[in-house]
């Protein structure tokens, strides 16, 4: 995509040919990203709806099911994500101030946090495969070594764990996509790719990453902290 004019000033952001001004371009990208985030909100929203419906329907039982989840690990992950979100916000700020080095460090920090998140997720998930708590055909409830009372109906437990794995799984998928996006962003920034001439790409990846954080902010109390 060619930029306006013959001489490209490497310090000036590129205005793509379909835009008139840089402000228009930046605002358009933000509007596009936000309307995409509307989509994401609705996608998770539908799952939250299913969750709240079943939670309401089986409210007596969901407490017993959630006792098998570890609120400590979940809490650690929440902090971790909040911190990564904070780093991401700093990265965007650094980009806006054209502090390239700080930007890279903050982005790297975000990726590290994302990997920590996935590792903790794996620590949580893998035992559940062994304990037949993954809602496939081999699902079994009550668990062999229950942490909680192990009560409640096996069928409803399967619904709970279906929701748990679907929602955290979809969220995990978003984390993975986020890692890929941040990596690409870092590489392209490092290579001084033509597409990365202003703060907008970082801002958009940042918006996405904050959204991932946002989802987890709700997932954590809903799955790990069900009050009696």
């Amino acid at each position, binding site marked *: 995509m060619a930029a306006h004019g013959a001489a490209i000033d490497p310090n000036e952001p590129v205005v793509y040919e379909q835009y008139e001004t840089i402000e228009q371009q930046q605002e*358009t990208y933000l509007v*596009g990203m936000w309307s995409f985030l509307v989509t994401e909100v*609705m996608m998770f929203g*539908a799952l939250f709806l299913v969750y709240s419906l*079943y939670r309401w329907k089986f409210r007596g039982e969901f407490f017993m099911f959630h006792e098998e989840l570890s609120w400590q690990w979940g809490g650690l992950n929440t902090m971790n994500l909040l911190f990564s979100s904070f780093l991401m916000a700093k990265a965007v700020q650094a980009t806006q101030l054209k502090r390239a080095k700080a930007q890279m460090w903050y982005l790297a920090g975000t990726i590290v946090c994302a990997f920590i998140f996935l590792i903790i997720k794996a620590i949580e998930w893998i035992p559940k495969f062994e304990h037949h708590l993954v809602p496939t055909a081999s*699902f079994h409830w009550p668990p062999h070594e229950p942490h909680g009372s192990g009560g409640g109906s096996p069928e409803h437990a399967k*619904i709970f764990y279906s929701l748990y794995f*679907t929602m955290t799984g979809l969220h995990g998928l978003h984390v993975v996509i986020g890692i890929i996006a941040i990596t690409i962003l870092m590489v392209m920034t490092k290579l001084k790719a033509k597409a990365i001439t202003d703060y907008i790409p970082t801002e958009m990846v940042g918006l996405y990453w904050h959204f991932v954080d946002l989802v987890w902010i709700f997932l954590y109390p809903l799955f790990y902290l069900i009050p009696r």
Partner: protein
Amino acid sequence: MSQAVIGQRHEIPDLHYLNNGHTIASWLLTKDHKRIAVLYLISVSFMFFVGGLAAALVRLELTSPHGQLFTSEQYNKLFSAHGIVMVFFFIIPAVPAVLGNFALPIMIGAKDLAFPRLNLLSWYLYVVGALIVLTSFILGGVDAGWTFYTPLSSIYSNTQISLCLVGLFLAGFSSIFTGVNFIATVHKMRAPGMTWFKLPHFVWANYATSLIIVLGTPVVAITLVLVILERTLKFGIFSPELGGDPVLFQHMFWFYSHPAVYIMILPAMGVISELVSCFSRRRLFGYEMVAFSTVAIAAIGFLVWGHHMFFSSQSVLQGIIFSLLTLIVAVPSAIKTFNWVLTMYKGSVVFTTPMIYVLGFIGLFLVGGLTGPYLGAVACDVHLTGTYFVVAHFHFIMVGGAIMGFLGGLHFWWPKMFGRMYSEFWGRLSALVVFIGFNFTFFPQFILGYLGMPRRYHYYYFAPEWQIYNILSSAGASVLAIGYLMPVFYLTASLIKGKPAGPNPWGATGLEWNKTSSPPDTHNFHEKIVVTEPPYNYDAISDNRDYRKMWGGEPLEWEKETV
């Protein structure tokens, strides 16, 4: 045949978007919204004929109460294929992705859509989704209908549903990206002076549609993912065996799929607003009211999904609420219809091919719209839900409305897209054939529905009195098929033999007609666009306030060449 040339002879410009690059890569990697529209046109038409073939076989099978051609299994796969292909791969993308992609940026004075690469990506997602779905048909088909009701789709059916749903998921993202693109474009890319109330209605309609897509499609996407998980990994969300609620699937499915009906019809309505105004040489009657009704339909569309489920054991309370909201949709629909009709008042109506499609649209949409209250009034729905009455109703809206709008728009913008005129005779003829064939096909189905024939029935040997209407319907379908095949030939022929159209063959207003050549340049405009005129400013062109000038009639640009 002596022809006196009195008008200006038009030439096709030397360089335009079609011949700016001839390699295959220049097409498959294009970022030009117009080229992507052409790619969409080809792929969407292909899917239309795939779906049409399935429909033809279904109609053929139903001529006999004993179903002589196929087994029930094959029949179920046929109607499912018809529904899936037509809904997800034809009607939903047809108008926005073909006509919208082509015309929307030009209409608002933009050089391209906001995100050209995203636009190309959404075409690729469409193609990959379509290929996956077609693969699933080849590998064994899908027999749960396009609605995929659980638990039939999630547990009991043993066909290629998971694969098909993956394809639909991708197609869903294709339309989400188109929607995102349109939203950003309409908000931020308008030319100076192009205020909201100077937007052509086609842009309004596509904007409202994009909002629906962005809000609704992800819901159905995730619902389909849940069904895939339930099929493949034996998760349980909708499974009644676990105490889950199969009706919940319907809620989530229709939360998108009812607004999806408006995704199909709203852009077509936008096309009709353009066309009726152009060929009546009048400003659209009640511009603001039509714009508001567009937005109102989009908004109310999200609040009425429950009317698909009046008798699917949702609560009486919910039934009543949804019935009330559904009947309110009658108001904006009535506003639109009356305003289209009144646009002709004191105008100068030219019966070109697009105008015949408009009149056909008004007639068919009228029938489709007026049979809405039968199904929206909750008690009246009891006998009709799940029968051919519903089938007839939504075909009148989706085929009679959306496809008439699509074909009308295609004929309207064809000279702009390819720079050449098609044969007006064949165009008018095919519009008439489509209209007649359509009525013959679907009107008997209203009676069938009232007689109690449930939809998706393969045999009806226990009710021989249904046969006569089925035969009528099938006969009409063959006429309809001819009507749909005709444009393939004369439109293709026009690409080679059609006479050059000139920038504005219809004498229409709007940036795409007055500021670009036909076909347009790759960057659409040669000048900087500043909009000063109100939309549909036909009074200024034809000066039909001076009624005496109108008596002789004012030939359109393309007619001027020969007398």
